[in-house]
């Protein structure tokens, strides 16, 4: 049987990519592998735990809010035709992912910081706002794509011919047929919010147990205690992998 050189080439390229993506994770575990005591120490460190709580809780809130905001916005973008719709979609979905997060933090600091009538800088709310801007586009992008898919099947039209109004089309057709995508949107938003650092650091600062998020702790301790930073990252990494796999299992259960 002749060897399929093209397929071999594809496999090699795939392996190179997989290796590149996984090597840093393996390296992290290899480095801390000899000193699990450090990981244990990190698990008991109140500053690390506080930052992990701020990061995780805010990521869950941002994920939930992003899905809630994505549904009506995606409905509007799917069904309403208006001038500048493509530009608006770009500004809402793709642009926030290219906008430097530090700039996002700076904009919010000027807009909602000490100099503005509404000062929420350096608060938990600031953490949520910064993370939301950077992460919510993931949920919106997936929801818009799915709503457009359902719209193209004409099932929403059938619902209307049966007397269904917007409420019925949205709650009985679009949302049930988009559950997996809404869960995936939540999961991606959560993941991005967990990793977000620059916008949050600039707008919310890093006040332990108030606004200090986990990536900030890692960054701030990486100079003085690099082993502790790596050990804490290992702990957080395991938690993140467990959470992401759980989201996937829930989504699979919805199929």
């Amino acid at each position, binding site marked *: 049987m002749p060897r399929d050189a093209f397929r071999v080439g594809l496999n090699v390229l795939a392996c190179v990519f997989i290796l590149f993506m996984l090597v840093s994770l393996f390296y992290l575990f290899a480095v801390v592998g000899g000193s699990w005591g450090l990981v244990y120490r990190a698990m008991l460190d109140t500053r690390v735990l506080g930052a992990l709580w701020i990061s995780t809780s805010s990521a869950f809130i941002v994920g939930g809010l992003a899905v809630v905001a994505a549904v009506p916005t995606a409905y509007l973008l799917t069904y309403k035709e208006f001038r500048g719709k493509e530009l608006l979609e770009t500004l809402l979905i793709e642009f926030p992912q290219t906008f430097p997060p530090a700039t996002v933090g700076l904009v919010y600091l000027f807009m909602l910081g000490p100099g503005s009538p509404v000062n929420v800088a350096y608060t938990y709310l600031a953490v949520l706002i910064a993370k939301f801007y950077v992460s919510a586009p993931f949920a919106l992008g997936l929801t818009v794509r799915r709503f457009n898919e359902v719209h193209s099947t004409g099932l929403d*039209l059938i*619902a*209307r011919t*049966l*007397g*269904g*109004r917007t409420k019925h089309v949205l709650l009985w*057709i679009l949302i049930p047929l988009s559950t997996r995508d809404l869960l995936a949107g939540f999961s991606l938003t959560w993941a991005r919010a967990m990793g977000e650092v620059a916008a949050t650091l600039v707008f919310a600062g890093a006040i332990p147990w108030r606004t200090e998020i986990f990536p900030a702790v890692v960054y701030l301790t990486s100079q003085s205690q690099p082993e502790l930073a790596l050990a804490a990252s290992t702990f957080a990494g395991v938690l993140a992998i467990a959470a992401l796999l759980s989201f996937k299992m829930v989504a699979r259960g919805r199929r």
Partner: protein
Amino acid sequence: MKGLRVESVTKSYGNLRALDGVSLTVEPSELVVIMGPSGSGKTTLLLTVLGVLRADEGHVYLGGDLIDDLPIEERRIGYLPQDFGLFPHLSVRDNVAFGLRVVGYAKEAVAERVREVLGLVELEGFEGRMPGQLSGGEKQRVALARALAVNPNLLLLDEPLSNVDEATKAEVKAKLKNIIEETRVTTVCVIHDARDAFDLGDRIAVMHAGKIMQFAKPPDLIKSPSSDLVRSLIASVC
């Protein structure tokens, strides 16, 4: 039952004139087939009556009432697309009950009406099945039951036989005609195949290039086609 009147309807997509002054009258309880080749404008006409498209000129009347500005959900027009459009996440029962629940029928009334229309389409016992577990013919009958459950003013069928295999086509066609006759619902059906059109229609509108070339009963069409073009379009049944 209500009749349908389409009056001098014109619809263009850019430079392409999909409907060119189409007029058509469907009597209450009549089954009219719109027949023609691809691109003749028959689906555009169907979607204009349904309210998905808005005519550039002309008007659509249902039971004597002008419905040009009536939203789709208020027209009470049942619609069966080519793929039947069953909601994949809902059982047969919930598909059929959809329109009844929308208008707020009581639970018992919904169950009773679902039983009634599933009996009409000979699908008793299928209530708990999901659309993915049905054959093409069964899907069509569930879609028909769902549309009929809400007592529509008019039924629109878009190529109802295109997703039915040849082996069961004759049976599906006969059942479809029986159900429509039994319910006496006014029906407009788009079909490209002349043989199917002649088997189903009380009257047939032959369309070409956005115009109705001839509108007559099947025997009259065969006996005296209005042009060579009409003769060629119905050649397979002559």
